[in-house]
């Protein structure tokens, strides 16, 4: 038996480690560093109906133990992803989770309908929490009813299970989690980035052309753990956790608060081999802690 294996709606994971959306492109760059089929799954870059250029540059800025990004959902558009990116990924034996974005419910529905039919797309991740686009994105993620409505619409057309990606920039994350569960979500992914800002030291102007950006990295890990800890006992759908994961111990922490699997974002930029390294170290770390499978670790903070 594989101590790392885990089953989630639509996803038969050989291990609970996947790169987070937007931090791994469509996999081609990282395939130069390692065989992508070692991964549990891959969350691909947000896909919109039309191609998007995104925000002006600078798009990234560093902060204490974190970074801000305001990419603005740059992507080559649905047609290109269906014709080029997903077929290229098929050579690797790894399930794909397609991150779906848009400005209107109709956009999400259009992308979800088509992309969910691609043979290697095993689940969708509804991005209702992107802080870097003017309309859509985060607006869907801060109101429980709007989030539920979108979830319902996408569930109707999707051929695969739907995970909803929650925004941490809310007063009450449990309300949103319960609303999307009620609306039929098969799982949750959390958290997306916290909204932040950095200034040029000399000019005092925002470094990012978009002014604000999404904060990721180790700095946000305590917030992510707290939110998953709050949501876990209140829902019965699984959670994929993320926010600052750098190593195997971080993975254990996310599983402990209640995540069933995890995604690694920013850490890929620091160490392109971080995912395979974690996958290699995880069984050893589990053994050190006296566990034989990740199932035993999930939710232990609550017990």
């Amino acid at each position: 038996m594989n101590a790392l294996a885990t089953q989630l709606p639509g996803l038969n994971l050989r291990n609970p480690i996947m790169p987070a959306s937007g931090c791994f492109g469509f996999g081609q760059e990282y395939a130069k560093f390692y065989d992508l089929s070692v991964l549990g799954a891959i969350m691909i870059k947000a896909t919109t109906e039309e191609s998007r250029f995104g925000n002006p540059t600078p798009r990234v800025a560093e902060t204490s133990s974190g970074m801000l990004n305001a990419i603005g959902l740059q992507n080559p558009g649905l047609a290109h992803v269906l014709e080029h990116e997903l077929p290229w990924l098929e050579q690797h034996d790894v399930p794909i989770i397609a991150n779906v974005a848009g400005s209107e419910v109709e956009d999400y529905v259009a992308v979800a309908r088509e992309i969910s039919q691609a043979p290697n797309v095993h689940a969708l991740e509804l991005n209702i929490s992107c802080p870097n686009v003017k309309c859509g994105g985060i607006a869907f993620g801060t109101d429980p009813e709007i989030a539920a409505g979108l979830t319902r619409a996408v569930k109707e057309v999707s051929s695969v299970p739907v995970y909803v990606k929650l925004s941490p920039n809310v007063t009450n994350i449990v309300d949103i989690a319960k609303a999307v569960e009620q609306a039929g979500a098969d799982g949750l992914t959390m958290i997306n980035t916290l909204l932040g800002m950095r200034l040029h030291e000399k000019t005092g102007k925002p470094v990012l052309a978009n002014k604000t950006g999404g904060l990721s990295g180790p700095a946000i890990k305590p917030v992510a753990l707290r939110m998953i800890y709050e949501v876990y006992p209140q829902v019965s759908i699984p959670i994929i956790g993320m926010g600052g994961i750098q190593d195997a111990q971080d993975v254990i922490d996310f599983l402990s608060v209640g995540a069933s699997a995890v995604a690694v974002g920013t850490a890929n930029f620091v160490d392109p081999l971080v995912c395979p390294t974690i996958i290699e170290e995880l069984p050893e770390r589990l053994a050190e802690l006296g566990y034989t499978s990740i199932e035993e670790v999930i939710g232990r903070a609550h017990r």
Partner: protein
Amino acid sequence: MIHTGKMEIVRHKEIARDVFEMTVIGQHTTAMNQPGQFVHIKVSGHHEPLLRRPISICSIDQDTLEFTMIYRVDGRGTKLLSEKRPGDTIDVMGPLGNGFPVVATPDIHAWLIGGGIGVPPLYELAKRLSESGVKLTIVLGFQSADDVFYEEQFREFGETYVTTVDGSHGLGGFVTDQMALFEQKPAIYYSCGPHAMLHAVEKALPDVPGYLSYEQRMGCGIGACFACVCPTTTGGGDYVKVCSDGPVFPAGVIA
């Protein structure tokens, strides 16, 4: 092949005001075969500062497996880098990106135009072009006499002119002021420096083929995160990534 991992510092010294020359040794060097590529450096063993820093490769020595970088202390990351001692290791990812094509036509005339910390990548290029018999005119622009470095080193490969903004060394003014004094245009040119300088150089040599090396804030450094895009002159949302499509682009590509 892109390497990631520790390299040992073998030499490290300040060569101009806040400008350091660092030579490291290791297997990464074997993959370095193009002038103008860069490496992405993690300056600390923990996650503060978090991101890597892009630094150009200045010269490569395959015999000793050493390569050299020149960097200016600017913010926190380069400050920490400057405190490293020979014997310490740094985590290097590279070589990355596409460098300058070495157009090896003997006896043609090439201009190399560098500004500030844009000067270093031109050094390995100068070495290779000169080995191929290309005739070089080199223009290096700095703020002030205190900032000048590598003037003598470049002189080995061709006529070298220095400009300083405050006129404290060489011609007072910008590299383009020096370029305006030359009577003949080159067959090809290569340039690296601040965005504004690259634009001015491009404008000054409209009909000459050239290669320009750009800077942009980076996340991944390998083309995955879309942090470092530049719109192209094609317009219509077309773009390139500085890290993986560049940092060197033919003149006329970047908007």
